């Protein structure tokens, strides 16, 4: 197959499917998120990174512009598709997180698969929605220790769950050999073998 620039239908389909796999897993584990929520200690923020891990894994696998955004949109609408719940704020958050991931990947010209790049993208995605949360949840009126706890748990989760875990999963998927024909690495026969 000749190498084509831009996203092909196959690229988009693979991206969406990766996002939906995470949506399914996330939905099956939805209980965890709910169990962690009470008492308001923000323990649920620890798994916050799971929301945008799809964008990171999809980017690492396909490495083309637009992939992170599509993956994020698919992951956000995944809740609607799998659990039949529609939450508009989720979709808007997802699009914002996807856009900021795109921005980070653009800086590295969609080439780098380095761990630091995806950790940066994870942190950026964790940070981007904080202003929205600030207005939506009146975070300015929270006791400061609770606020700092929430911020640090979320950034930690963006770096570790989305960035590091995303990278670990990418390397493991690469070892299985399914990435041979996929994405911008397809012309390079040694890549992904």
């Amino acid at each position, binding site marked *: 197959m000749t190498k084509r620039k831009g996203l092909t239908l196959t690229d988009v389909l*693979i991206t*969406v499917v990766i996002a939906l796999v995470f949506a399914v897993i996330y939905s099956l584990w939805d209980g965890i998120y709910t169990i962690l929520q009470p008492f308001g200690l923000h323990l649920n923020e620890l798994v916050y990174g799971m929301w945008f891990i799809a964008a990171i894994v999809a980017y690492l696998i396909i490495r083309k512009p637009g992939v992170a955004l599509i993956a994020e949109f698919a992951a956000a609408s995944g809740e609607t598709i799998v659990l039949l719940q529609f939450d508009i704020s989720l979709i808007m958050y997802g699009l914002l997180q996807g856009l900021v991931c795109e921005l980070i990947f653009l800086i590295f010209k969609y080439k780098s698969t380095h761990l630091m790049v995806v950790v940066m993208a994870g942190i950026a995605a964790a940070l981007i929605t904080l202003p929205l949360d600030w207005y939506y949840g*009146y975070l300015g009126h929270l006791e400061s220790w609770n606020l700092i706890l929430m911020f640090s748990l979320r950034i930690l989760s963006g770096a570790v769950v989305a960035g590091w875990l995303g990278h670990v999963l990418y390397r493991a998927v690469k070892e299985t050999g399914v990435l041979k024909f996929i994405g911008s690495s397809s012309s390079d026969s040694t890549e992904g073998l």
Partner: protein
Amino acid sequence: MFEAVKKYSTFTDQTNPLTKIMLAVILFVTVIFIHNPNTLFYLMIFMLFLLIVLSGIQYKYLIILLLFIFISGLISSMYMIFYGEGTTLLFEFGIINITEESLIRGIHVAMRGVILSLFGALLIFTVKITDVFYSLMIQLKVKAKYAYSFMAAIRMVPLIISEYMQLRQAKKVRKALIYKKHISGFKGIKTTIVTLISQSIRRAYRLGIAMESKGFSDNKRTYYYKTSFSKYDLYFILLVLASIWIAILLGSSIPVINITDAR
């Protein structure tokens, strides 16, 4: 999808999905800018009313859903109720201190979530998910390759779920033979995700090639299902905007509680 639990259908079913999504965005922006808990309370009542009347879902299912929406709304705002700033102390226990201000603010945040969930539930009950992608293609001219890959991927979700279940059973059967770390714990989670992803990529790749060769990425096409805008869209828009407007009026003229600013 909900035909079995639907008692009747209303004009909302004929409303274009894009209209509904756009209204949901407007509603989201609106609730962020409303700081009067009274207004939010009235808006919540209106949205509850719209859901009950327009969805046409049997009441026993609606009640279960409503319980779920209200409880999860309250749980998600607990952080504010427990740890919000305030001066009039109501309850103190260890690090938890509930003040009047934080309680009102917490309920305010919970109501925001509940309003969006109620409207979201109305959407789920009245929109067919494929129609969303058809109207994205027909009305918004989104390229067919995006819409069709989404629709194809959605069809794969049951496969992914059954594969996950199969994997879990396979691990259960072999539990005695393999090292415990590979079943539970981080390694167990990792192998599960990697298996699911690699299988799905393989399947998506095959399907993608097949769809491309059948011309699904070609942009000039006709559609079997047609979506359009109609007078029903106008009715629905007017209904939702009127609810917001009346809620704002009622919130300032007939307040339920004395506090008019949750901040």
